[in-house]
């Protein structure tokens, strides 16, 4: 018995102080190449002038002899980069703002009322089941509907995103609310605060870890989405960053350096965002997975 204890103590020690597994580290670093290689290729081709692109592998993948930034200025001109960037920012930003307010309100009222109220329980399942409705079935009717309501523009896209992300976000907020004891609100209400003030003063700030998760998940989804703006905004002259890449495919032609400069430009904003907030993005998503 005493040997077993000693053995387990030894094991415990090796677990905590053990050396990092070098072989595994090397394998994982090699595996990274599958992720980094396509990005390396994008950067190298974007920085090259078309004359350097020969027909062999080296021509495409070698490091450019001189950095050519003219691809970028040309790509910005062709795709109207700053306008599409602004549109993407507007759509993503407003979607996040509306989602944080409307979804957390809905999540709160549903989460607190569905225990004793059948109507709220129904609303919960009604909204969450929206997760299984594919965009394909909504697409054609939504094109008609947004045209009739005259929101076949950015506003329409924003409202649609608020609806598309509602099932997931309401579920996340409802789940998170279980961690917040109801005693808080009861105490505030005894002090004479209304439900509305209690919510904004106490509950909304307490849900901030979930706000981060919701904001990140919604942001990644809306920033990269092509299908919704493609079908809804096709009538207007506005585009988003990914949609511009689709619309200007024919103008890029066989000038791959121009095309890749444009792809890189479109990827840079989210890459910067990711480099700055990597920890909170990964943490936020992990948080959503555990709570959801």
């Amino acid at each position, binding site marked *: 018995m005493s040997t077993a204890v000693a053995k387990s103590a030894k094991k415990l020690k090796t677990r905590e102080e053990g050396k990092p597994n070098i072989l595994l580290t090397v394998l994982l670093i090699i595996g*990274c190449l599958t992720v980094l290689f396509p990005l390396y290729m994008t950067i190298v081709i974007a920085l090259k002038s078309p004359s350097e692109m020969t027909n062999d592998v080296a021509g495409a993948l070698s490091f450019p002899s001189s950095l050519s930034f003219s691809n970028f200025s040309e790509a910005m001109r062709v795709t109207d980069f700053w306008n599409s960037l602004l549109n993407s920012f507007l759509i993503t930003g407003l979607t996040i703002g509306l989602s944080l307010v409307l979804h957390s309100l809905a999540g709160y009222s549903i989460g607190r009322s569905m225990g004793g109220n059948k109507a709220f329980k129904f609303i919960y399942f009604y909204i969450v089941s929206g997760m299984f409705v594919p965009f394909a079935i909504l697409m054609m009717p939504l094109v008609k509907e947004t045209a009739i309501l005259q929101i076949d523009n950015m506003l329409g896209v924003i409202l649609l995103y608020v609806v598309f992300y509602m099932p997931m976000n309401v579920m996340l907020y409802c789940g998170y609310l279980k961690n917040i004891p109801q005693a808080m609100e009861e105490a505030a209400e005894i002090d004479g605060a209304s439900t509305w003030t209690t919510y904004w003063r106490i509950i909304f700030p307490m849900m901030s870890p979930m706000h981060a998760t919701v904001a990140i998940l919604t942001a990644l989804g809306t920033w990269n989405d092509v299908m919704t703006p493609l079908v809804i905004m096709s009538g207007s002259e506005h585009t988003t960053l990914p949609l511009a*890449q689709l619309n200007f495919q024919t103008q890029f032609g066989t000038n791959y350096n121009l095309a890749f400069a444009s792809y890189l430009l479109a990827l840079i904003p989210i890459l910067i965002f990711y480099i700055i907030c990597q920890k909170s993005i990964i943490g936020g998503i992990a948080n959503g997975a555990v709570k959801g």
Partner: protein
Amino acid sequence: MSAQIRKPMSKRMKTHIGMVLPALILFIAFNTIPLITGAFYSFTNYRGYGSYDMVGLRNFIDLFQDSRVGSSYLFTFKYAICGTILVNVISLVLALGLNSRIRFKSALRGIYFLPNILSGLIVGYIFSFLFTYIIPAAGTALGWKALSNSILASESWAWVGVLIVGVWQSVAMNTIIYISGLQTIPADVYEASSIDGANPWQTFQKLTLPLLLPFVSTNLILSTKNMLMVFDQIMSLTKGGPAQSTESISYLIYRNGMDGGQFGFQSANAVVFFVVIVTVSVIQLRLTSKKEEQL
């Protein structure tokens, strides 16, 4: 007495109703109403413009005899099944690796998560260049005949190209979910198993996997659903070709419903697609929750 309790309750209830109402109205307007209109159009011969007639179940009967629709279902399921298996196996292995004692842990996690934040469309364009130019050029240089042509141009292999891109992007998200699952397993469970003399494979099979099961089911349902709805990669890699061999259900509905004058017919297709997705999700939920109960 009960009236006294009820009164403040009802005031609170009023606020709660006010809180849920804006979201609920939007949801009805942009989810339920289009869902119902879509279902309605599936019984018509509407072309997207002009007048139309009710045609009863005609569209649904035609749907099952339409070879293009049939092959789009075949492609989508082939893609979703292979993709879900590959994604989950790769991301589970990666998560185990990234969760063990390694150097540069957070940097490696950061890199492996990168594909998830990138636009599927742009990733598709980048891989399209890779498949069309780089790999054939490398294949020719190495003298490998099999690689010397673009797989995206091959009717029988283009779907593998789409699959590679889909998997490349989806692995990231599932890996993070598996890692957060692994972190919920307390360390003393592993200590107990090592005291009992279990080897690593036994530990994984008897301990890690069962404890991870809720996350496995989340991941399976998530990736199946996402893979069944594949669209962006098709748009940038193959546009459904060659010879419609990579036409996914979503892509076909978009292509022929929006521009092809098949609004009614493709609405019927979308209704069937909706039913298929719900059925697949419910079956997966049932199966995994049964497994979880057994433990």
